[in-house]
Each structure stands twice: as structure tokens, then as C-alpha cells.
């Protein structure tokens, strides 16, 4: 264990595949003719780009849940906040091309009778400011929330449920039109980013590559964090929180740090997601969405980072496919998949893959995750 390299087999294989996809998919999209059997249509490219954002979100959750035992049922909130920060910038970029032609106010503000831009919308016309907010808005929320919760030693399901309450409260708040975020409709009708049209293939490819890079980056950051002594303390907190305290570690600080980093990671995922799907609305705050993130991680293999990403890709791809192939029955398939994986694959899909791959070569059990969060 001590000799484990920074990029282990698991991560290496995944990153290599990610690299292939990052280069291959845009190439297959732009270089190959549509008649070619390997051509990837642009809509597939955007779809995969969206999946990659979800994968990054799953990695963010795995960092806190898999390694530190914090089961957040509110990670969708951080994702959505990152998305909203980016959405607000894209909204400001529309300028006078909106339906009402108002150069400053987004359409929804015009018809809700706003006289001027609310204060919290200022600054979002600048790209760098929006990027900063993509990190700061979720980061700050996570910091404040975590500062209270971890200091008060709220743990286990109690913590899970209040994170759920947090995202639920935000859902209700963002639904309110008085909040100035477009209510239920959220933010839509984006035109371009940094002058590049969002519907052009070039921008699509760029966003795709950025998402892939962000996922790779997220995995590397996660890997780095979990490889350090800090990461080992996190696992210690997960397995025996009181022992960690009695060794003199201030558990709340460790939790707070990783929770905040994870929230920022989720924010980045949200920010990349929004221009690719073209809409951000309060639905992203819904508790069911956050539960789904947990399911990706559990299904892929908790506490492995790569497994989380894999789980997200499997579930969302399955959902995309099933909702078209079996529009009336896909929920049966998805539900059954969750049940079977839970019962028969406690280590998740990644656990299964590695078990199969190990086959003849006997190898020590990698960081088994048996303990309760």
C-alpha cells in the first residue's frame, strides 16, 4: 500500500480512456464525414460532454462521501449554484438580442417589471467574475454550512438530512420569482460565450474538451488529496472519527476543507454543464437530483474516485438510452439496476471489473470500503 504510485492502474486506465475520448470524439465529429460509420454527431458530442460534467460531480461527491464519510444529500445545490453563476454570465451576454431588446435586463426581468438590475447580478457581465463566482458561490455556501454543521458535530443521517433540507430550501427559494433568478423557468436562451456562438460546432467541441479536462483535473486533484496524509486523516475520520480526534486532529477543519473543495468542484461541473445543455433552472436543486448523484457513486464504487465517474457515466447513459428505447418501462430497468447492484455488487461496478480483471493474479484487497459512513 505504501508503495502505491500516484497514478495507479485504475486511474491510469481511466485517464487513458478519457484522453482517447477527449481527442477521439471531437475528431470523429469534425474530421469524419457524416456518412462514415464512426462519425459522432454533434448532438452525441454535447451529450457526452454533459455526461462528463455529471462524472465530475460524482467525483466531487465521492471525495466527501467515499473518503470522509460525509453523505451529502445536497450536492446538487453546489452544482446548481455553479451553473447559475455561469448562466447569469451567459444571460448578460445576450444583451439586447433578447425578445424585448433590453440591453441590460434579461427578458424575464423585463416582463416581471424590474426597473434595474438587482445588485447580485452586477459583475456577471465580466467572464472572469462569473468564473470566480462559479467557485465562490458554492464554496462559500459549503464553507458556511459546514462551519456550523461540523463544529456542532452533526454526523451521519442527521447531516445527510440537513444537507437535503438545504438543497430543498434553495429549490423553493429559487422557484420564487422574487429571488430574481427567473423562477421556475430559470435561465435560458443563451447565445454565446466570450463571443463564440454556443450553437457552433467549434464552441461545442471546446466545451466538450474543457469538460473532459475538468474531469481529468478533478480526478487528479481528488487523487492528490486522498494520497496525502490529509487524505489518510479523512479516511481515519470516516472509519474512526473519535480516534482521529483523540490523536489531536481537528476533525471539523478537515471535513470543512474537503467539503468546500468538493463543493467548488461540483460548481465547476455545473458551470460547464449549463452552456452545453442551454438551461439552468431550480429543478437542479431538487432533492431527487442529489440522491441520484449518491446513486452514481454507490453504483460505480464508493471511495475510488474513478468508480464514481464510471457510475455517473453508466447511469446517465443508461437513462438517455432507456428513455428513448423504452419510454414506458425505463423506470423498471433503472430501479432494478439500483437494487441488483446494491445487493450483489457492494463494491460497485468498479469492484466487479477489478475482481474480474484480477482473475488469476492474486492481489491484496484495495482500500476496501466496509465501514459505515
Amino acid at each position: 500500500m505504501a508503495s502505491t504510485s500516484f497514478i495507479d492502474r485504475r486511474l491510469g486506465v481511466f485517464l487513458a480512456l478519457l484522453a482517447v475520448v477527449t481527442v477521439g470524439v471531437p475528431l470523429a465529429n469534425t474530421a469524419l464525414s457524416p456518412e462514415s460509420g464512426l462519425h459522432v454527431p454533434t448532438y452525441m458530442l454535447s451529450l457526452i460532454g454533459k455526461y462528463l460534467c455529471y462524472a465530475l460531480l460524482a467525483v466531487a461527491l465521492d471525495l466527501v462521501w467515499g473518503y470522509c464519510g460525509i453523505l451529502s444529500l445536497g450536492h446538487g445545490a453546489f452544482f446548481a449554484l455553479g451553473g447559475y453563476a455561469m448562466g447569469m454570465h451567459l444571460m448578460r451576454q445576450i444583451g439586447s438580442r433578447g425578445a424585448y431588446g433590453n440591453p441590460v435586463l434579461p427578458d424575464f426581468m423585463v416582463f416581471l417589471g424590474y426597473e434595474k438590475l438587482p445588485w447580485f447580478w452586477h459583475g456577471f457581465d465580466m467572464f472572469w467574475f462569473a468564473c470566480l463566482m462559479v467557485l465562490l458561490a458554492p464554496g462559500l455556501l459549503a464553507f458556511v454550512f459546514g462551519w456550523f454543521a461540523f463544529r456542532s458535530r452533526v454526523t451521519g443521517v442527521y447531516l445527510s438530512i440537513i444537507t437535503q433540507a438545504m438543497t430543498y430550501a434553495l429549490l423553493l427559494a429559487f422557484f420564487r420569482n422574487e429571488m430574481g433568478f427567473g423562477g421556475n423557468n430559470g435561465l435560458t436562451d443563451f447565445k454565446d460565450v466570450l463571443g463564440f456562438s454556443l450553437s457552433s460546432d467549434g464552441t461545442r467541441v471546446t466545451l466538450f474538451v474543457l469538460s473532459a479536462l475538468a474531469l481529468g483535473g478533478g480526478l487528479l486533484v481528488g487523487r492528490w488529496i486522498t494520497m496525502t496524509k490529509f487524505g489518510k486523516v479523512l479516511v481515519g475520520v470516516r472509519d474512526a472519527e473519535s480516534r482521529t480526534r483523540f490523536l489531536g486532529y481537528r476533525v471539523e477543519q478537515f471535513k470543512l476543507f474537503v467539503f468546500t473543495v468538493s463543493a467548488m468542484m461540483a460548481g465547476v461541473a455545473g458551470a460547464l454543464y449549463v452552456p452545453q445543455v442551454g438551461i439552468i433552472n431550480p429543478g437542479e436543486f431538487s432533492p431527487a437530483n442529489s440522491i441520484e448523484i449518491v446513486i452514481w457513486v454507490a453504483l460505480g464504487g464508493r471511495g475510488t474516485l474513478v468508480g464514481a465517474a464510471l457510475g455517473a457515466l453508466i447511469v446517465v447513459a443508461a437513462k438517455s438510452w432507456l428513455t428513448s428505447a423504452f419510454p414506458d418501462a425505463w423506470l423498471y430497468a433503472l430501479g432494478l439496476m439500483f437494487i441488483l447492484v446494491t445487493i450483489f455488487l457492494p463494491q460497485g461496478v468498479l469492484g466487479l471489473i477489478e475482481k474480474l480483471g484480477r482473475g488469476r493474479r492474486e492481489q491484496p484487497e484495495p482500500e476496501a470500503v466496509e465501514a459505515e459512513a
Partner: protein
Amino acid sequence: MRILLTLTVWFGLLLASAASAQSLEDLARQLPEGSFNDRAEVVAKIGATGDDRAVGLLNALGEGELRVREADGAVIQVKGRGSKAVGYDPLTGDELGPVGSGSTESIRVNNSLRRAVRAAIGLLTLSSPDAGKRLAAANTAFAAPDPEQIEALDTAIAKEGDAAVRTAMEQARAAAVLASDAPGAEKVAAIGIVARRGGTDALTVLNPYRGDADAPVAEAADKAIAGIERAQQLWNVGQNVWFGLSLGSVLLLAAVGLAITFGVMGVINMAHGELIMIGAYTTYVTQQVIRTSFPGLFDWSLLIAAPLAFLVAGAIGVAIERFIVRFLYGRALETLLATWGVSLILQQLVRTFFGPSNREVGNPSWMSGAFPLGGLSITWNRFYIVIFAVAIFVGLLLLLKRTLFGLQMRAVTQNRPMASEMGIRTARVDALTFGLGAGIAGLAGVALSQIDNVSPNLGQSYIIDSFLVVVFGGAGNLWGTFAAAFTLGVANKFMEPFVGAVLAKILILVFIILFIQKRPRGLFPTRGRAVEG
């Protein structure tokens, strides 16, 4: 004697309207013609005839059963639909035989016409032998004051034997006096009588006289209104408490099953909401069977549905435990994943079998309407739901504290190995405990079907609140769940008038988040074994 009196009154009325006398038959023929306002006048005239047969005619009109026969333009009453439609003479009640579809045209009724019908019927039933009908007539007259009715009311008051009905009639008369051009002093006196009635109805009558040209009348009205409003403010507090208790009972119902499966057993049961939904659908199916086969039992439908819902949801609960959850003990968080899968499947199953749209679950007559309690109007369905919730809670407590099963259940959850040593079949107890929690969720579904949508989404709208209630109360503590449900319900309802429904809910959530910081194990933390997810 009474009949004689009644006849005299009607005769008197008949004479009074003799000036513009038109036969009832003539008037009935005019019903389909003209604008709604014209027809409302016709209705008023029909009421004024005092004719015995007018009540039936007007009722048929109000019910929308009057139709015009296209062949001869005659007004007939049609009962039943489609091929079962049968025509009657609206005045005599004689059967006219089946009515072919398309051979008649309906006589449209709208609210203003319906109001006129109600007023006319009220006038006609002021001397009905049934005290309840007379009271209703008096209340109708009060709500729609009409100076023309003063005379009729006077006559009715004179011979009224029932004190309560007479008071109502006097109040109606006062309201009518207010609307008339009676002298100021008489109106001031009338205001006094109306004010004594209190409540929203009186306010409705009095409010228009606030700025009356006649200064004493305006002053009296102001004073009376201020008095009523003061009284109402007090009652408002009571009303908020009641609304809060009622909301609390809904939360309690939704959460108490979860308090078992999640609080006691530690299973993060995301399918809990769907078990509630199953209970509601069981109620629906029960009512369907009753409607088609035993219509007379409809008022008993909920009582029949309750044990069925308990059994159906309980059986599904046992199945979930046996086939899924039992493999996951010790992996509490993973139960979330599996039960989420179960919840998706249950939702889709219901959608497949019952369709995605709402199903109608009727209120039995004893759960419809409201009764007054002081200045409050308490709706029967909410009232019974509060009782039902508390009864389930008490029953559950007794089951846990007083029965062998309860003892075994507590033994197993507190110390499984030792319970097993002592010969308790822990697997069986686990299954039954989960089944109990699920069955109670089913019972909750029966109650919630009375106030909410019965649709595949029913469960989704309660699951989050349920978890919040259990956690806020302290997982593993039934009393905690009880206190939490009512605390949150009342707090919500007290905030709602000030900040609106949405903000109230947000504030409640923020409050729960902050409260958990203060007491990380909920309102009533369980010492020793609790959910340690």
C-alpha cells in the same frame, strides 16, 4: 293546524303577487329564453308564485336537469345520461319516457341564475315543516339580503317555534332591513341584530354600510364591524393553532411509519412515500368496488379501506424486507440506494396499472363539510384526520410497549445477538417490524387520499417532509416524531399569514438546519442505540 297556516301564508303570497300574476306554466316556458339576468327575474317570479310545484321546478333548474325538447319547445326534466336518459314533466313529475340524445337542448344555468334559484327556493321553504330547511332558507336570505323578502320573513318569524331558526330569521330580516330604505333608527337597530351574529357572514352584510350616507348608520356599522373584527382576531389565533395541528397531523401520519422503518430499524427507506401512495390507491380500489357493487356502503368505505391498506402496504413492506433490505443490514446507507430503486419501480407499476392521472377518491358524507366551533369553522375531514393520526400514534405506542411483539421488536433493535440467543426469531421480527412501518404508511395513505391527489406522484411529495420530521424529532424516538410533527405544523401555520406559504416553508427548513446544530441528535435524542448512518 300547521298545514292550515302554511296554506294561508302561501295564499297570502299568491295574492301579493297577483298583480303580475302569470301561471307557473307560463313562467316555466320562459325559462330557456333571454339573458341570464332576464331569466333570473323569471326565477324570482316563480319563487313569488308560492306555488307548491315551484320548488321541484327550481331544484331541477338548479341541478341542470331542465332541457328544452326540440320537437315542441317544451321544458322537460331529464334524469340520467345517454341511453338511460328519461324525461319527466318538471311540474307534475309525470314520466314522459326515454329521451333520445340530441333531441333536447340543455337550459344553461350559471352562478347568478343559481343564486336566484337559491333565493327563490329559500323564500318558498321559509315555512317548510323541516326545521333544517327553514334554517337553511333563513341563512340564504341572510347572505343575500333583499328588502322584498321582509314581509315573508315577518310572517315566518311570527309562526316560528324553533328559537335558533327564529334568531336566524330575525337576523335575515335585519339584513334585509339594512338593504331597504327604512329609516336610520331602524337600520341602526338592524345593525345591532346582525352584529350579534358575528363572523364573516355578518361582516359581509355590514361592510357596505361603513360609509353610509346616514351618519348614525355608518357609525353603528363601523362600531359593529370593529367589534366583530376584534373577536375574529382572537379566533384567528385559534384558527392558526387548528390549521397547525391539522398540518401537523398530516406530517405525523406521513412520518410515523418512517419513524419505525428509518428511526427504529435504521433503514433509509426512500420507498416510504410510495407505500403511502399504495395505501391511497388501495382506498381508491376499495371505493371503486363499493361504488359498483355495494353503493350503500360508501360511507363505510374508508373504514373498510383502512385495514386493507394496512395489509397491502404491510405485505409489500415485508416483501421489501425479505427480498432486499435484509441483505443490507449494517450497510444502512446502501438501503437508500436499493429502496430508491424500489420507489421508482412502485411508481411505475402504479402508473402502468392505474394510469398517470389522478384518481378520484370520494369523501364519505361524514367527512364532508365543516362544523362551527365558536368562531372557527372546522372541516370534518381535517378533524377526523387529526383524530386518526393521534389514534394511530397511540395504537403504535401501545403495540410497542404492551405487546409481546413490541417487546421482541425492541429487543431485536437494541441487541440483536442477545435477542437471538434468547430464542427470538430475529429475521421474522425484522420482517414484521418493517411490515408494520410500511402498513402504517399505508394507513396514512388512506387519510391523505381525502385531502390530496391520488396519483403516482403522491409519495414524492411527502418523503422529504417525513424524513425531516423524523430527524428533527430524533430518530428512534416516537415521541420525538410526534412532537416534531406538531411543532413544525403549528410553526408553519403561524408564519404563513405573515410571509406566505413559500417563505414559511423555507424558514422552517432553515430553522431545522439551525436546530440540528444546537441538538445534533434531534429534539429527543435516543441514548444508546440510534441511527448512526
